[in-house]
């Protein structure tokens, strides 16, 4: 499989009262054609900043300071805005966490779906509307011919997320970035949306970058996983490797905080403490203060990504002494 997206060494900073502080640091990963990559981590670990950096949709106080983002071999960092606009919505599309507020309340559904076709493909009004109906059918919306002329407030959250997916699919993108696409939806709808994404991925032959904090979703959807903590990649590898042999104590903590139906009912385990704030990043390993295995070395010296096996890496000194069980 050839590489579609190659993110290497990306550092994105935000202007704060204390100057520019990095929200993500030295983030690297790749997405191959046809692959689904999961990015996991708790709130504030930099998942969304990573995706917004790729799209270059950071807020005005944020900027990519270092690194390279190559899409089909083409460097995106430093592209002029009008060049980047040709990529957004066309080659790389994105859906967001909040379907209730992500659609423009004053425009009809059809117009919002057709918009990227009109921007990128030069469609006319009627042509865009016809294609919008087709896309609504593709994402499984009943009565597509009527819904196309409805306003968003007439639709439920699940329906709106389907519309968001239809918008994203309009120009047949090679990469879909889905930022917590099911978090705001109830469980049955979540499953439907994930099914839909899987179906579309197969039909339209695209890659997906799926951002989530839900490891259940990752297990179901992804080929590979990148685990992020406090703005850094702490572990990456194939889904199977990560689930069978989680190597970073943070990943271990995440996995053990999933509630299980089978087995003895115990108190749900959680990782004590919080993600350190941008202002107070520790010098050593960023997870050290919450880590049950932390040593003096962890506090003073930051580990790099160390190989676990094959394509499986973890940013932990425990990997230095191969074979240590976590």
């Amino acid at each position, binding site marked *: 499989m050839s590489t579609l997206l190659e993110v290497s060494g990306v550092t994105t900073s935000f202007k704060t009262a204390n100057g520019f502080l990095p929200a993500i640091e030295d983030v690297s990963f790749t997405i191959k054609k046809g692959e689904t990559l999961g990015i996991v981590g708790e709130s504030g670990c930099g998942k969304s900043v990573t995706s917004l950096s790729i799209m270059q949709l950071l807020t005005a106080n944020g900027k990519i300071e270092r690194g390279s983002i190559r899409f089909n071999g083409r460097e995106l960092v430093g592209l002029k805005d009008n060049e980047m*606009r040709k990529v957004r919505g066309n080659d790389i599309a*994105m859906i967001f966490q909040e379907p209730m507020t992500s*659609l423009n309340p*004053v425009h009809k559904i059809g117009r919002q779906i057709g918009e990227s076709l009109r921007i990128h493909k030069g469609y006319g009004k009627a042509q865009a509307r016809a294609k919008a109906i087709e896309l609504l059918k593709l994402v499984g919306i009943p009565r597509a011919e009527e819904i196309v002329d409805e306003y968003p407030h007439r639709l439920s959250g699940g329906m709106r997320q389907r519309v968001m997916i239809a918008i994203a699919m309009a120009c047949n993108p090679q990469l879909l970035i889905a930022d917590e696409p099911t978090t705001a939806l109830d469980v049955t709808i979540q499953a439907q949306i994930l099914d839909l994404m899987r179906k579309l991925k197969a039909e339209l032959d695209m890659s997906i970058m799926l951002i989530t904090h839900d490891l259940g979703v990752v297990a179901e959807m992804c080929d590979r996983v990148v685990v992020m903590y406090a703005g850094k990649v702490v572990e990456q590898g194939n889904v199977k490797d990560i689930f069978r042999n989680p190597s970073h104590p943070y990943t271990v903590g995440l996995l053990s905080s999933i509630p299980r139906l089978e087995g003895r009912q115990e108190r749900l385990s959680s990782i004590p403490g919080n993600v350190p704030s941008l202002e107070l990043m520790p010098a050593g390993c960023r997870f050290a203060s919450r880590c049950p295995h932390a040593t003096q070395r962890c506090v003073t010296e930051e580990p790099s990504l160390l190989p676990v096996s094959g394509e499986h890496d973890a940013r932990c000194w425990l990997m230095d002494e191969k074979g240590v069980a976590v």
Partner: protein
Amino acid sequence: MIAYIIRRIGGSIIVLIGISIITFALAYLVPANPARAIVGPHASEALVLKVEQQLGLNEPLPVRYIHYMENLVHGNLGTSYVLDQPVTTLIGQRVGATAQLAVTAWIAELLIGIPIGIISALYDRKALDHVVSILALVGISLPVFFVGLELMYWVGFKLDWLPVGGTGGFNFVILPALTYGITGAAYYARLLKSSMIDVMNSDYIRTARAKGASPNRVIFRHALRNAIIPVLTYGGIDIASLFGGVVVIEDVFGYSGIGQLTVQAINNLDVPVIMGTVLFAALFVVLFNLLVDVLYGIIDPRITYS
């Protein structure tokens, strides 16, 4: 929608009747006698009584009000005590000039205020925002008559581009309208700035940008329509009050509109004219409020009428 409009018109009539009662009572309850005002301070008591009788001022207030309303229903607003002409004629002569000034002044405010609002929202707390905000603050702080006189002096007199004052064609409207635009635009700018900042930070704007929409497309197709509602609310009140006459500006520019008529009538205690102009202004307030409420629903489909 139609049912809503009919209901609203019914409500408006009640409002107008209420306003007519209050104005009527206030105009006649002031401690001054209109008959005395007409004949002058040195006329004899007998003459005052005679005039009172002529005008029907000797009848009790409620009776006079009923008479007034009877006439009003027949389209008769009475006759000016001072100018000796029907009030409908007096208003009719000036309504064109006032409407022209009102609409032009309103457009001038929007043309100045909306771009300033958009710019200061997009460049919030940056240099350009500070520049336009200060300009707007200057505009809002300067007295209307001062701006009017400066424009008159520079544009009317020194440059000799436009008439210095008076009433006539559109040329006579530009300077008074511009005066109003400069002094009133800042309200629009401020309203639009804050709602525009809110809208620009919303999720659907991020969606639009994620589609590859250009900045202009994002601002004008996606953001402005969502941000314009507060501007519309204020705009309705503003243009309605403009139709009631722009007293200071009309005075500065010697512009013969409803505002001037009203001021003269108040000075002379010319009650039929006061009543006529107040009701005229109230009618426009009610009409524009209705129009704005209907426009809300057209601009934002989430607003429904029931």
